[in-house]
């Protein structure tokens, strides 16, 4: 029973999605549209699952003082800092910040202390007392400072300049620099792997060189337009053919797997390998 119901569900929803494609009637469209909405909404709950796992892994490291556990505090700071920014808003015109940043600091420390109270084995009372102090401080600030406010009631938190600042000055630099590392790695991979060991490797190497040539101004001087034309031809003709062959293959593979899933032939994804 426990095992069968999910496969029945898979069949029902899968078969519906196949049939609705052929049914233009609005009742079919209606169901189709809200099913898609459902999936988007369920996805958000999965995100909560992810955050929970992240927290659990970090707390586990801190609790057991595993290697590099000190860095797990950074995860906690980043996580809760950004959440606080995302749910509070700044009322002022950007001139006066009041005690907003001290509040954030107190709230963050309070959260960390609460977590410590929960996970620590000894010194529970010390952590609890510290947590109390920081909670009190942040409550006091939130009562007496009018330059900012909680915005549990509207999406203004996302417009909070600090929320955006964290995005602009922490997320973006790390993300785009990680990505930029690829410029270095692509060079070292080319150096290491592009060696004419056999026919296939040579084909790979020559094609790569031809395409990269179009950036070489001296090649353009010697061969005129033909270098660039050859590289475009490579990208447009053999590339198109190979892409199409792969796309058709992958398409068929996906279609076959989808069919197997709908019919309950493929069951590996439910955890029985």
């Amino acid at each position, binding site marked *: 029973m426990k095992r069968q119901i999910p496969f029945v569900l*898979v069949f029902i929803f899968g078969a519906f999605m196949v049939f609705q494609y052929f049914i233009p009637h609005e009742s079919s469209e209606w169901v189709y549209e809200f099913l898609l909405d459902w999936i988007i909404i369920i996805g958000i709950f999965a995100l909560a*699952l992810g955050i929970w796992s*992240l927290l659990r892994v970090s707390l586990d490291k801190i609790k057991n003082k595993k290697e590099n556990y000190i*860095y797990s505090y*950074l995860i906690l700071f980043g996580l809760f800092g950004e959440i606080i920014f995302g749910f509070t808003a700044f009322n002022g015109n950007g001139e006066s910040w009041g005690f907003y940043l001290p509040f954030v600091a107190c709230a963050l420390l309070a959260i960390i202390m609460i977590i410590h109270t929960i996970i620590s084995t000894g010194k529970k009372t010390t952590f609890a007392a510290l947590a109390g102090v920081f909670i009190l401080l942040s409550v006091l600030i939130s009562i007496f400072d009018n330059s900012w406010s909680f915005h549990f009631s509207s*999406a203004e938190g996302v417009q909070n300049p600090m929320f955006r600042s964290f*995005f602009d000055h922490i997320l973006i630099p790390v993300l785009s620099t990680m990505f930029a590392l690829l410029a270095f790695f692509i060079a070292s991979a080319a150096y290491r792997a592009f060696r004419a060991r056999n026919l296939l490797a040579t084909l*790979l190497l020559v094609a790569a060189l031809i395409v990269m040539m179009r950036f070489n101004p001296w090649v353009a001087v010697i061969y005129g337009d033909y270098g660039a*034309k050859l590289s475009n031809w490579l990208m447009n003709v053999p590339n198109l053919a190979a892409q199409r062959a792969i796309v058709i293959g992958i398409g068929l593979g996906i279609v076959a797997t989808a069919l197997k899933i709908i019919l309950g032939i493929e069951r590996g994804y439910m955890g029985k390998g």
Partner: protein
Amino acid sequence: MKKTAIIVTAVVMGLFILSWVLKANAVSATAESNYILRGFLVTIAAFLTLSVLSFLYKDNPFYKFAEHLFVGVSAAFWMCLGFWSTIVGNLIPRVSEGLSNTFKVPYIGGDWGNVLGLDIMNVVFVFPIIFGIMLIMRLSSNYGWISRWPLALIVGTTAGLNFVRYLQSDFIQQVSSTFVPLLGNNWTGFGDFFSNLSLDASGQLVLMLANWVIFIGVFCGLIYFFFSKEHTGAFGKASRVGIWILMITFGASFGYTVMGRISLLVGRITFLFKDWLEIIS
């Protein structure tokens, strides 16, 4: 060993503070408010950029610092956006009038009428919440199995969508695109063909060649992907041609990609030079 680490950390901290002060000073000159904060933010962005770049040398504490901070902030960022845009923006207006008022979003439930005193839209959109909660039940060891239901919903729906969609886009469409005239699009006879022979990209010969290469490439490529037949004889030869064409393509795409990766590095270095050091305009 320990001593060097302390010295390096101290130097980096010193540089960080120096950059912060100088940057704040530079910002304050442009009469922007909160210059201390702005100076800090630009400095931390530069610091994180350099920290990640230091990974090229080897794994080190600065890299770990950037990485862990990044993990925390990104998780929270996605969560906040998902909450405001999907839960508040899409779900709440459809299920609860009270919550809609609290979150100041227009309540759109009730548009589909009532059945047995229940609002249809409310009922329909309560299901994803139930499924979402079932998904979270995964955390429970006793009721974890129930999380398979929403998984079944997601997998089943996507499978159904994929089934017809890929059949159309990647199969029927791609096949019909392969129906190309092998003699080129405006064939005017052999006499004309040989008298106007040129290597020009829009010339008849090149167009014809392109169509032939596409035709042979697609079919040899497909033959390479035959799994249930031994690749011997003519079949094996065709499959060889197939893998050659695949390799040429992979080499070409690799070479093509270099450009994009360099651009990303340009972006980062420009940031360092322009926004942080201000040595270029």
